[in-house]
């Protein structure tokens, strides 16, 4: 019967679905900067970086391989392809000139992990007190927050995908907790 054919299930299907409830993938190395400045320089900074700095609180903007994450009224976390540090510094020096600002390389300070899958938000809510329902924390939203006792920058890149930026020495703690929480989803 056609109905039976439609509901055929392979032996691995359910096991794989459970395993895929949430996955953790380390993000590749990236160039990262903290940009801070005065409003007069925001547009030029966007030009220099190649991504207009989002002016809406807790929102990220992406153009190609580069993203700007709003962290505060005068503060953005800039993410770019690995190896772009010198070029970005040069571009800012060129475009901003004497505009007061601060551009600090934090490429190695942070490290990042991508948390993806249907259970991604649930796993994050094991340590993050924010409302991560899609309507409250939509795709493109980013914020500095806590995961248990670690400070993180949380960025929702898709309905079921988050990027978590964390200082490198907290990576082991973050990973250990995520792994611990993942076990209950696989159980």
């Amino acid at each position, binding site marked *: 019967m056609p109905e039976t054919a439609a509901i055929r299930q392979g032996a691995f299907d359910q096991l794989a679905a459970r395993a895929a409830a949430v996955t953790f993938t380390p993000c590749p190395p990236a160039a990262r900067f903290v940009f801070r400045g005065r409003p007069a320089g925001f547009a030029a900074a966007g030009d220099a970086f190649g991504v207009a700095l989002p002016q809406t609180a807790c929102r990220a903007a992406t153009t190609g391989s580069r993203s700007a994450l709003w962290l505060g009224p005068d503060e953005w976390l800039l993410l770019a392809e690995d190896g772009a540090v010198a070029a970005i510094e040069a571009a800012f020096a060129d475009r901003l000139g004497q505009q*007061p*600002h601060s551009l600090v390389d934090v490429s190695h300070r942070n490290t990042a992990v991508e948390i993806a899958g249907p259970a991604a938000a649930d796993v994050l809510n*094991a340590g993050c007190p924010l409302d991560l*329902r899609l309507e409250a924390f939509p795709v493109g939203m980013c914020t500095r927050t806590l995961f*248990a006792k670690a400070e993180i920058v949380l960025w929702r890149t898709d309905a079921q995908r988050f990027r978590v930026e964390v200082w*490198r020495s*907290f990576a082991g703690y973050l990973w*250990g907790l995520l792994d611990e929480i993942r076990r209950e989803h696989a159980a």
Partner: protein
Amino acid sequence: MSAPFRLAQGGRIDRARPLGFTFDGKSYSGFAGDTLASALLSHGVHLTGRSFKYHRPRGILSAGADEPNALVGVGRDQTRYTPNLRAPQVELYDGLVAESQNRWPSLSFDIGAVNDLFGRFLPAGFYYKTFMWPRKAWDHVYEPKIRAMAGLGRAPTAADADRYTQRYAHCDVLVVGAGPAGLAAALAASAGGASVMLCDDQAEFGGSLLSETTATIDGKPAAQWIADTVATLRGRANVMLLGRTQAFGYYPHNSIGLVERLTDHLATPHPDMPRERLWTLRAREVVICAGALERPMVFPENDRPGIMLAGAARTYANRYGVKAGSRAVLFTAQDEGYRAALDLARAGVHVAAIADLRPNPDGELPAAARAAGLNIMAGTTVTGTRGRLRVSGATLGRLGLDGQVGQSQTIACDLLLMSGGMTPSVHLFSQSKGKLRFDETIKAYVPGQSAERERSAGACRGIFGLAAAIEDGFARGEEVAQAVGRAGGAVTRVAVTTLAAAPGVHLGAAPHDRDAATVKAFVDYQNDVTAKDLALATREGFRSIEHIKRYTTTGMATDQGKMSNMNALGIVADALRRDIPEIGLTTFRPPYTPVTFGAFAGTSRGQLFDPVRQTAIHGWAADHGAAFEDVGLWKRAHYFPQGGEDMHAAVARECKAVRAAVGIFDASTLGKIEIVGPDAAEFMNRMYTNAWTKLESGRCRYGVMLREDGFVMDDGVVGRMAHDRFHVTTTTGGAPRVLAHMEDYLQTEWPDLDVWLTSTTEQWAVIAVQGPNARKVLEPLVEDIDISAAAMPHMSVRQGRICGVPTRLFRVSFTGELGFEVNVPADYGRAVWEAIYQAGLAHGITPYGTETMHVLRAEKGYIIVGQETDGTAVPDDVGLGWAVGKAKKDFVGKRSLARAEFSKPDRKQMVGLRTRDPHDVLEEGAQIVANPNQPVPMTVLGQVTSSYFSAVLDHSIAIAMVRGGRARIGETLYVPMPDRVIAVTVVDPVFFDREGVRLDA
């Protein structure tokens, strides 16, 4: 094994799934769906515990969270043992192992029961009155003995093998309790798409409806209505159902604590499954549908096993298919009690008598009982009971018109049911800071003025009766849907058929004709508080229920007075001849039922208790056998023992190597802050005591930071990378504090400054290369920096490349030797470290840890903030007066430094101490005096702050803070120790290379 009290049919148990379990080592059987209590009752076992104070035999009293007697320890081994669980809440699983508590040697023969005989000597406040004198006996006799006897249950002796987890969650509406009102509220609240969470502490949803066999809802049996309603809710994507989940606390801003039991009901839980999940839930609206608890009657000897709440017996019969006895007497003050009598009679229990305290019970339920041929004795009280390990009879006395007990008779029974009234469960409402109101009709407190976005529905706000509770649930559910902007329209109402209970309740003690001074009529079963204890407390002058509670212990312990509080209030009000609201009401504190420590700890245990911060070089240190020490959250290499060395040997070797050749040290944990902007130098001028304007790019300066009160807060080397860019270092532990301190000033005092702060602690791995050979090691590795003495003097910084990666290379020293600190992007840290180490082997390079770093700096008299300073030292006290820019207009703390107190000559000043015996190493923290023979307490001049054995000097060294210390150089002072007095000479705190020639090598 046969279960003689199991009914042939009925109940919600699964008779196809028999289970085995043990209680106090004896094997019993039950069925899936049973609780430990229902399974024990099916075998006729009522005796399940001994009371706290008198060790009286006690039985199962209730069928829920209010159970005060049947407290059991559950768990087959110490790693999964939980004490003080309430047997009616313990779900049965195959192989469950349970034991009774508070008895020795056995439940049926308990030595502690002698307390019952001497009960007259154990009145309220017994401990306060008795164990007063002599004072010393408290420590050695009373307290240990009382501690051994007191307490309920025993703590497990092994570490908890279970895992626990936590969740934060948000929703539009939380409905607490899935009884008739809760199910109706959830249906209505979710109809328009609002996100709704519905939690219930039981294994099945339905609440009181699970014990309902005769009522119909919407034309169907209650059980069917539950099933249909739960199916509807489950089918809604916007609804989340949480079973086995207790809402235990209501916290500010509609934050609710829930604990979800995940595996306690399973025989073989999946090893990856946590035992419990703690939810911290924030709901826009909360609907509390917590129901009501039945009140027992307070009468003499009302605590024998076999005496039970009427509603509980009904639940055991209807829900679990268990007869709680063969021959029952009901003592009631309300119509609700009759429901149990009717259902038990239907189940085959012989109901010998119904003693109703009211003179004319005439509602639908008494009428039905009469029609069923039950023997109703109106205007009748119970004046006493018989039986030791089980009730065997009840004495019933007729009340005359004057309220006095007249003619009485004893009726044989093995089950005595009590029904004094219903107490709404207002715990969560009260925890939310809502104001309670006393309702005279039902003689109970009900929710009054709300403080949070919550509302109550059904019995928990005094709306009793099935139809009214369901209607209230629908109405409140519709309200909250509206409130969150997701109204779903009016919910179709359901018709309910059931016998109605007329109002009418009793509060306090029932009348009797016994000697009130000796007879025990229990109010609080768990704490063995009787009516006479409460009366005694009022005679002794207590007036407030808060004081009476603490004096008599009524309402304390695991059940928190769920069953007893209202009767206690009634008795106290009677005794004082005051209205109940005048007596007050004790505070309802979370948690509603006990919550495990594990749930609160969650994943924060073992390696995950705190972040364990490791540097990029940590792995190398571990591979090379380093011993680590905790510095804040960091793991730092403490020393690198070789071939069985102890710490002293390793440190001696490391110190000598640094002074003679070269050492390599991981300084990555140093705090680093990048200060950038046109006003960076101005900001530095204001934050630090030093002057920064004239510091050239490429040069470094040692900076001292004060708090506003003038005391040293932090220090560190600062490099000027460019006109508008400083690379600031802080102490390892001080990094977050310093950044916050700077941000605070920048944002609140000087928002006009164009300067910004960014933490770069973790951007850079820092490799200190220190010693006479340091330059030789680094020279071949550095690509585009001239590190010669002429080109790169002490306290300078250069940017370039090392081993192919970018570096900020500092020439600085915390050892007094020629030294560099190689900063490289952290991900390259280990590779660069290894390259330097390899290159250094030819020059005798030796890795060293924090202990050697401490010794080397102490030899040079360099302070460590937090070791030499204690938050009360100004720069001059620790020899840093030179670092204060006297000509500067202002800096944080400057004004405080001008206080006269800070220039007094007898302030504690930093000095060195030299012992006569070079191998005498003083104890850090030891006190220093001028005359060791003076009487105690001595006049203390100061204390030792740092003390080590210096292998380089082959002599102990010590730094101390001593009153007027600098003027005492050359004097002999004394360090009294428990076994001897050590004489010391006050010396300059720089012990090694006083001229500093090695620095500039």
